[in-house]
């Protein structure tokens, strides 16, 4: 008998009588999503900037970076500030990325998180390995809470997806909060009002 059989047999012998899954509907408040999202993300160390389009983003990127910085993005609207290089770089070659700019599918107001699936990333490691992260989010793509988030995700077949809520952090040293653990040191979200190309 394989270990698998052994374990499953033991479980079947010991599991209790079947109980039903709850059919609960959790209420949601859909008002003031932008304000809630902004407030929550700011509290957890992120930055939210309202913008009308990529011109604002480009101007901002120019103001926070200088010539030597490697800037990685797959967003064609930002072509003029993106560093030259391979279109689909290998993960390790991204280690010197100063700034990465990615799009997010949507944001969640209750916790300031954005949902990003693999198809928005040239490499899964990009939003983690960069020193600083900028996320472009359509201001209309906000949901109130995680229940709505998973409704929106539905049964999409992604290879990888992640919720990112602010910059990486740790409080392991005497509960002192430090931003910038192993992931990005900062996270800035551009909430774009007008439809993006």
């Amino acid at each position: 008998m394989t270990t698998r059989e052994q374990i499953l047999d033991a479980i079947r012998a010991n599991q209790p009588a079947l109980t039903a899954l709850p059919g609960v509907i959790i209420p949601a408040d859909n008002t003031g999503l932008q304000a809630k999202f902004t407030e929550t993300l700011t509290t957890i160390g992120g930055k939210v900037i309202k913008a009308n389009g990529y011109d604002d983003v480009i101007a901002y990127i120019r103001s926070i970076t200088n010539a030597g910085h490697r800037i990685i993005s797959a967003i064609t609207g930002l072509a003029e500030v993106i560093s030259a290089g391979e279109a689909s770089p290998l993960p390790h070659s991204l280690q010197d990325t100063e700034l990465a700019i990615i799009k997010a599918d949507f944001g969640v107001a209750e916790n300031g998180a954005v949902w990003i699936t693999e198809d928005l990333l040239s490499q899964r490691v990009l939003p983690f390995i960069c020193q600083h992260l900028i996320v472009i989010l359509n201001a209309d793509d906000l949901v109130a809470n995680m229940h709505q988030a998973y409704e929106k995700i539905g049964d999409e077949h992604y290879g990888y997806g992640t919720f990112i809520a602010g910059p990486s952090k740790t409080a392991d040293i005497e509960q002192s909060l430090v931003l910038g653990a192993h992931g990005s040191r900062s996270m800035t979200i551009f909430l774009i009002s007008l439809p993006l190309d």
Partner: protein
Amino acid sequence: MHTETKDHAELATVFNKDEARVDWHDETLWWIRQKRDKAVNHLPEWELLRETASQIKDNVLSNLAGYLVQFESNAQKNGIIVHWAADAAEHNNIVLGLLHSKGITKMVKSKSMLTEECHLNEHLENNGIEVIDSDLGERIVQLAKEPPSHIVLPCIHKKKEEIGDLFHLHLGTPAGNADPQFLTETARQHLRETFLTRRAALTGVNFAVAETGEFVVCTNEGNADMGAHLADIHIASMGIEKIIPKRKNLGVFLRLLTRSATGQPITTYSSHFSKPREGTEIHIIIVDNGRSKQLGREDFRNSLKCIRCGACMNTCPVYRRSGGHSYHNAISGPIGAILAPNLDMEKYADLPFASTLCGSCSNVCPVKIDIHQQLYKWRQVIVQNGYAPAGKKAAMKLMSLTLSSPAAYHMGGKAGRFVMKYAPFAVNNKLNPWYKQRDMPEPPKESFGEWYAKNRKA
């Protein structure tokens, strides 16, 4: 750290020798409990969420085999390789075997309490594999050669000066530097090199979704992702009870988990792994290690609902004043006390008694495990199985005889008060543990029974 031969009371006594430190430990964890309170009070539907999560987990336990098979099938369809391990040894050998098969001798790990339970690091190191823990708190205790003291906050028992000293010794930071910002930056640089050079990364699993075959790993630091997305092989270790039925259930659990643990609305990263990156592998090891046995214990199976948030530890007044190491087990605190006796009743017979049964734990538990009721029930089981000290057994028998007989009770009470009044030195001494830090109560001139007989009915 040899804690095998000691019990919680002895270890807690040692911990309490440094009262200022106990205050510091207690206040730090109480502060985290308060952060949890602040966060959960933002959600008027909090109690509804707890009840929902509890019912989902009840359903999971009642169909565990079915969900595991469903998960395995869906994970395999996505290209994940699934292994099964009956116990810690088998789990450890699977990990070792995978590393050997790829000629890998260095691995980076992100936090997994299951691997602590299995003593994985020790096994790998004994077999020539270098393991580096990438969670900052875990890395710190790894350098200190200690186990973590808390399932979410591994080095909550360590002061920043001690961490500074460790980093000075092992990572070459300047002596005396205890600045958290500086130390974290040092760890970032040191571990970045590790992430970039390790071909194998091992993570835990916070939730495994039966419906889709995906699993979720939650971190604040981003270390699980840094390791996994740069490695050729990602090994994920999970206990059988980490299963949840549907993807949408994650909505409930991800709202409860981090609020309960640290008071944050969500961890910085909640990564959902479904398929391996092209040219790489993901292996999941499904581990039993006593869980199926616990599943068969009607009074204790609810302990398997645990999502490892640590809220019970933060709220426990005993845990705060004794520290995680006093529980001499990978999982400490109230949840540890109801999980461990299932693994080794003799070794962990002391843990269910390390509690006043105040009930705070059960009421912060996001999945409504009846922890304090289980602590009471484990006490009965442990005594019935013969693990009570002989002196205690004798004292209890005597108490039972005295209290079942009104005459014996009245006589005993009178005698006790007499001794306390006329020979206080008989009880006010070193042999009486109560007397160490507390005065004994003043014996009154008559009991209530005696007063009543005089002042009411004839």
